């Protein structure tokens, strides 16, 4: 799943005929000033300015400002751009038109195993979350699109009446069209509001999750996907992602500040079991990492360098199951190069390395790892006869 920031998310909705407020995404005040000269609405409407970054609780951080005139929007933009929040620097601000409204509603479309669901509620904002039973749903089979009647029925079930029921049905229909055509996995508008000016339904805030795997058939997805866990990706993470996008197989890396057990396991399945084992043993994860699908050794080397550079680590878990086709000798070659480089840069002092692996050329790979002992590494190497996560037990027992 790939999260899309508000700007491009609203762009996609607009493409499918959903009313969204006017908005611009800017990277500097100058840009906003120029846009103000070109767009009447920026001068004539009340505005909202928000930091356009994958940040949680923006409101609390003062990164959302409402009810602004253009001057105030410029001031807010100036204040937000360049602000440092944790490891993230705000680089973009989205300035949008404030829509005067009274009522707030809810509409979402989500992917399910059986097909998809259209969700509608005649309350919105925070209210919907505390009144989840008021959300009515229409279940659709795989390949099925909702009919106008079924959507109207849904709207009526949710408590909409008269012309508003028709409008809500039409809105939900457009949401479904956007969801289906854009390979979305989740599309949520909360709130949907009635614009005082023309009584039309407008999407005020949107959550857009797209299927990143479908990017190949959406040439207009010219935006980057945002991190999904309330912060932007770090430089190290982005560097590993850049490598990942270039290779056969994959390498993944996510930092978890404050941990002391670094992870360098193989395989999407085993890596999670290794992380579980660390947590179960009372350890603190310093990162999540994974290499799989027989990636080239240089990619594994880059990943290893990132893992070795994590601050304050005491153990590195080089775990892995019995590989099907990942060449253990070759991928371990990348790890060994990464270790040597880290050591030559003065890293890995007082760091214990724990290895467990099986698979094609396991003996050669494990022997090469064992040989690192002679180069002064504190390394413990185990083969398939040691159960998968036992190295974590050993690592975290030793104090």
């Amino acid at each position: 799943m790939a999260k899309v920031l508000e700007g491009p998310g609203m762009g996609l909705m607009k493409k499918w005929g959903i009313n969204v407020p006017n908005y611009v995404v800017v990277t500097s005040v100058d840009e906003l000033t120029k846009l103000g000269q070109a767009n009447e609405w920026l001068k004539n409407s009340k505005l909202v300015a928000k930091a356009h970054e994958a940040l949680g609780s923006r409101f609390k951080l003062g990164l959302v400002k409402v009810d602004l005139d253009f001057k105030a929007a410029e001031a807010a933009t100036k204040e937000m751009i360049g602000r440092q929040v944790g490891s993230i620097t705000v680089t973009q601000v989205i300035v949008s038109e404030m829509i005067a409204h009274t009522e707030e509603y809810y509409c979402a479309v989500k992917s399910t195993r059986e097909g998809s669901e259209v969700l509608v509620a005649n309350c919105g904002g925070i209210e919907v979350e505390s009144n989840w039973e008021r959300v009515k749903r229409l279940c659709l089979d795989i390949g099925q699109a909702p009919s106008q009647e079924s959507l109207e029925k849904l709207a009526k079930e949710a408590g909409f009446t008269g012309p508003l029921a028709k409008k809500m049905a039409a809105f939900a229909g457009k949401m479904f069209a956007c969801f289906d055509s854009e390979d979305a996995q989740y599309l949520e508008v909360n709130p949907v509001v009635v614009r005082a000016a023309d009584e039309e339904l407008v999407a005020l805030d949107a959550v857009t999750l797209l299927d990143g795997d479908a990017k190949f058939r959406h040439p207009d997805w010219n935006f980057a996907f945002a991190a999904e866990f309330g912060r932007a990706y770090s430089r190290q993470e982005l560097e590993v992602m850049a490598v990942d996008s270039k290779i056969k197989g994959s390498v993944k890396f996510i930092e978890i500040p404050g941990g002391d057990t670094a992870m360098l396991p193989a395989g999407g399945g085993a890596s999670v079991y290794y992380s579980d084992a660390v947590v179960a043993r009372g350890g603190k994860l310093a990162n999540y990492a994974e290499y799989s699908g027989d990636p080239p050794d240089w990619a594994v080397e880059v990943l290893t360098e990132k893992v070795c550079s994590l601050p304050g680590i005491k153990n590195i878990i080089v775990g892995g199951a019995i590989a099907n086709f990942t060449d253990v000798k070759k991928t371990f070659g990348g790890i060994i190069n990464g270790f040597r480089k880290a050591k030559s840069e003065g890293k890995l002092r007082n760091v214990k390395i724990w290895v467990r692996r099986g698979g094609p050329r396991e003996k050669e790979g494990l022997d090469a790892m064992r040989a690192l002992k002679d180069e002064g590494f504190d390394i413990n190497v185990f083969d398939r006869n040691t159960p998968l996560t036992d190295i974590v037990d050993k690592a975290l027992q030793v104090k």
Partner: protein
Amino acid sequence: MSILANKDTRVVIQGGQAGVNAARRMAEFCYLIKRPLNVEAFVYPPDAGKTNEIPYGSGLIAIPIYKSITEATKHHPTLNTSLVYIGADRAMKGGMEALDDSHIKVVSMITEGVPEKDAKVLGAHARKLGKVFNGPSSIGIISAGACRLGVIGGAFDNLVLSKLYREGSFGVITKSGGLSNEIIWICSQFADGITTAIGIGGDAYPGTDYVSYLEMFENDPQTKAVVIVGEMGGDLEERAAEWYGAKKRRVKLIAVVSGFCQESLPKGMKFGHAGAKEGMKGEGSARSKSDALKKSGALVPPTFGALGPAIKETYQDLLKSGQVKEPVEPATLPKLPKTIEEAMKADEVMVAPLIRTTISDDRGDEPCYDGYPASELINKGYEIPHVIGLLWDKRLISKQEAEIIKRIMMLSADHGPCVSGAYATILAACAGIGLSQSVAAGMIMIGPRFGGAVTDAGRFFKYAVDNKMSVDEFLAYMKKNHGPVPGIGHRVKSLRNPDKRVKELVGYVKSLKIKTPCLDFALEVEKVTSVKKDNLILNVDGTMAAVLVDIGFPVDSLNGFFILSRTIGLIGHWVDQKRQDSRLIRLFDYLVNYAAPKRREVPPLK
């Protein structure tokens, strides 16, 4: 018995190289269980009409490649299973093509990164047709002793270690590919091994889920217990629990779920598999899955490490109750023939080498010339002439010798466009011929009359010096046995119009105070011949030859100095013509003396 994949499974593989690699692995398994290769066809339009050669034992089996599934099943009507190795952007079309063919009953998709929507449509289509769509992102399916689909099971040694050559009693269903092998191994070490292991893929919506496969295992009398390796995200494990708890089941269910670490990680952090994502309200969490499975009566070990003992416990119960018997291991198993490289590494074979080399070796991280690494030569100040010395005469020549060679090369790099070699290269260049062929055209001209006399000149001067001949004896010997002396005589230059290159080279070498017996002898020869005829002077070929013999180069290498140097010029001429975009050259009639008979009538054919 087994499910999904058995002795009657006949496979078509859709895709290119990845599919070929899988077929090799599958052939290894077929060889282990002494059955014919189960792959009968490939579908890969770019190579349609050709074959893929799949090693089986020590031989190769040619498997035909077709352009469509329909064509493949027409030629191989027993095909019933397709493995999809097509790229994510075309996987949907390929999967549909296979499902729509009436022969194909099982489609397993290995492709990763298939859009979720496509996977859902494929799964729904298969259900509608009453077929099985497994995957995407599946590592494969393996039935011990019967059938392997994909690379699941890993390398040959692992197949043997995991006792996949004969049936056990445990079914395995995993999302993860790597862990499937781990579980198969655990089942073989803590119990009697597996019946069938299925990788369903780690995507959010696998085409076929745990429940469908549990149902199949339930109906397979050989399978006594099923091991599920789950992970957080989605509700497949909960559905499996629901199925297991719904009524008394014949099979025992053992399950582990990953993702407990989630509880102490940043919310929403995405893990390895696309499907491993917890919902917003905690549904799909490892804990909710694990609890549901426990409640259903399944055996749920607390950690992955405890899985082995849990499997062992279940196996012991099965043994005690008489539901399974200790397996009988076969006395011998086929050994996979080693490749020559593997056998040599193990000191098991000796191979008579085809060629022998004594000058260079690039098997390390860089080429070594006569044992010296190229980079070290560079860094220690050695130059091209030293490399020539190493590769042509296997010795590190002195600075002085290198200087001589450098001068020889500079003097013979080019001699204008009119000489045979350059002219041939230019002619070819103007005809639009490429660099290497045009240079080769010029190179072909090097022979007894142009540039190719160096070796012979060196050989005869050396012969004379070695045999302490006088100039007269030498000339008489040459006249009697060989004819004109190579290295003596020039078409244009003469005593009065000396060759500056010769003067330069002789002057330099003479200034070095080294012994030059051949050069001295050659100059003596010139004294005699040039008196007889003005242009019978020591030419540049002869001078080079004598000097090179004097500094110890083997006679057979001598023409090489001219060839190497002149290549510089020939390349220059080609580039020159190319840059000018020269037109095709055709001889003018007036440059030809037409001495053929005049036009006449052709007599009738007899």
